[in-house]
């Protein structure tokens, strides 16, 4: 820019005057300013609330999942295909006293062996009557220790005990879903269901399990009963016998190191031991999906807020044309006009960001308090939120402020 040839100092708009004029511009129409801000308040509020609620909810999910996963050790049998007679399933590699052997390891709360019963046995409410039976119910074999390790929520009756296991009794423990489908609702008259047309007394019904959720749509018979009636489990990787160990918190790693030797000191390699996974991986998987979805929603809210500010600022520019002309007549340069309107929209965005952040934080705290959760607010997402409002205000104000700066003072003054 060429040097001024005037003896007068150039007109200027200092920062203090700029802020004062912008604030005056905002305050002269408080209702409109509040409505302008509302878009940003909602956008930033949704942004903070979504992030906070996602973090809070995933904290709950993560805490529960992590606790279960951190206390679970799984042991897979590696049966030799040639160990049994040709054409038959090989015998399971777990010793008969596997529950006791695993249960004696320090830190184990419950342990046992289970598998999916081979051959797709037919479950029905009545003996062979020509009907196809109830489909979709898995039949599992489990030792008493394995059932305890699954930690079922028993709503009626009891679970198989050592006596039923030792004597291979024809009893069954039904999941609530299986009981409903088989027409069993009460146990006081000792109902029976039929598996491959043989009766099994229903000894209990469970509504939930902490481990092995696949059994939630299944029925469980004692392992000895299953071995006697259905033979050895399949050698297929997902149907072979599995050891399930519930440990105390923090003991799973140590238990995993010892369990194979405890089961078969002579052949520990006969088992593949799965220690608990990284406790963070599951939480990350669950939360990343939720966060991505909700962030997209928050971004839409922000966009709506930005469009709201841009629209209202543009309307304000059009309405204040006379003022722009007057300011130009009083010596304001185009950049002064642009700066004033840009500052107004930026201040509105910042205020909207601050209010929205407060609203979002309050929402997270309120929901957490109502659900009895621990509120989780990540500083990296919450603290910069008002600055997002500033950025939104700044960007939204760009076009209107340029439009204001380009306003022809002649037309502006005639408009009055």
């Amino acid at each position: 820019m060429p040097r001024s040839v005037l003896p007068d100092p150039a007109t200027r708009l200092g920062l203090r005057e700029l802020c004062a004029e912008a604030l005056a511009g905002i305050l002269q129409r408080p209702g409109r300013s509040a409505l302008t801000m509302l878009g940003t308040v909602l956008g930033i509020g949704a942004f903070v609330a979504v992030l906070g609620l996602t973090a809070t909810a995933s904290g709950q999910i993560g805490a529960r999942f992590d606790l279960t996963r951190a206390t679970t050790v799984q042991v897979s049998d590696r049966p030799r295909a040639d160990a049994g007679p040709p054409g038959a399933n090989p015998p399971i590699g777990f010793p008969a006293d596997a529950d006791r052997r695993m249960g004696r390891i320090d830190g184990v709360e419950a342990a046992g062996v289970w598998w999916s019963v081979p051959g797709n046995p037919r479950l029905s409410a009545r003996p062979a009557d020509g009907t196809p039976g109830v489909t979709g119910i898995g039949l599992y074999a489990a030792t008493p220790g394995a059932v305890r390790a699954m930690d079922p929520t028993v709503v009626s009756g009891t679970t198989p005990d050592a006596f039923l296991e030792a004597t291979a009794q024809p009893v069954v423990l039904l999941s609530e879903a299986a009981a409903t489908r088989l027409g069993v609702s009460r146990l006081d008259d000792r109902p029976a269901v039929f598996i491959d047309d043989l009766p099994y007394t229903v000894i209990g019904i469970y509504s939930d399990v902490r481990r092995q959720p696949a059994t939630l749509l299944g029925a469980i018979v004692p392992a000895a009963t299953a071995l006697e009636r259905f033979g050895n489990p399949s050698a297929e990787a997902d149907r072979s016998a599995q050891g399930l160990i519930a440990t105390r918190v923090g003991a799973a790693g140590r238990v995993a190191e010892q369990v194979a030797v405890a089961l078969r000191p002579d052949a520990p390699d006969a088992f593949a031991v799965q220690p608990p996974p990284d406790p963070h991986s599951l939480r990350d998987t669950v939360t990343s999906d939720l966060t991505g979805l909700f962030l997209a929603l928050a971004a839409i809210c922000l966009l709506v807020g930005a469009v709201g500010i841009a629209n209202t600022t543009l309307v304000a520019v059009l309405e204040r044309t006379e003022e722009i002309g007057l300011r130009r007549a009083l010596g304001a340069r185009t950049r002064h006009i642009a700066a004033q309107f840009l500052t107004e929209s930026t201040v509105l965005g910042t205020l909207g960001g601050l209010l929205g952040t407060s609203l979002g934080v309050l929402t997270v705290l309120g929901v957490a308090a109502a659900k009895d959760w621990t509120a989780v607010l990540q500083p990296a997402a919450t603290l910069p939120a008002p600055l997002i409002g500033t950025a939104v205000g700044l960007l939204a104000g760009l076009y209107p402020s340029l439009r204001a700066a380009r306003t022809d003072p002649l037309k502006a003054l005639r408009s009055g």
Partner: protein
Amino acid sequence: MSEPPVIRLTGLGRTFGGRPPVTALHPADLVVRRGEYLSVTGPSGSGKSTLLHLLGLLDTPTGGRYELDGIDTGTLHDRDRSTLRGRRIGFVFQSFHLLPHRTAAENVALAQVYHRVPRARRDEAARAVLRQVGLAHRTGALPGTMSGGERQRVAIARALVNEPSLLLCDEPTGNLDSSNAAAVLAQFDELHARGYTLVVITHDPAVAARAGRRVAIRDGVLSESETGAGVVC
């Protein structure tokens, strides 16, 4: 010795582009010296407003030369034109152009916002100049609560607060009743007596008659009226 010229126009003209182009102001020469009270009269569409906008540096001429206080305005960048406009020209508009949400004092002080004047001094200067125009008791009043005459006097105070070389008045009594118009014209007389240079653009012969010197404009042609010299068309 005559006073130095505040305004010197040499062949100043303004043609608006279009099909066909419209010449709103034919090349005109005019000298207005310090302390003069000049009226420009003419019917609607004669080019009065074009002349006012050129004199007020709100518009740029398409030909000729305009010197304000000896400064050739044709060579100035927007920054310097804004500076010159803000510091050396005071505007009084027909429709006042007061900000409705600001008090009389704040409206007057607005004229110094762009001139590096601290807020306390702005407020002080605003009150002082409002006192000069007889509105010491209305400094805190909002324009909506004031009469037309009071509003125009606030506008005059705003035009005066930077002690400009030139007061440019565009139909200053156009929105006033006769008694308020008389009060405003009396104000102009007083300012003239105090040495201010006034250029009043009006279509009202009674308003024009108050000026010591009159020029007329018709169809974009500027001509000296019967009372004085100094115009060469």
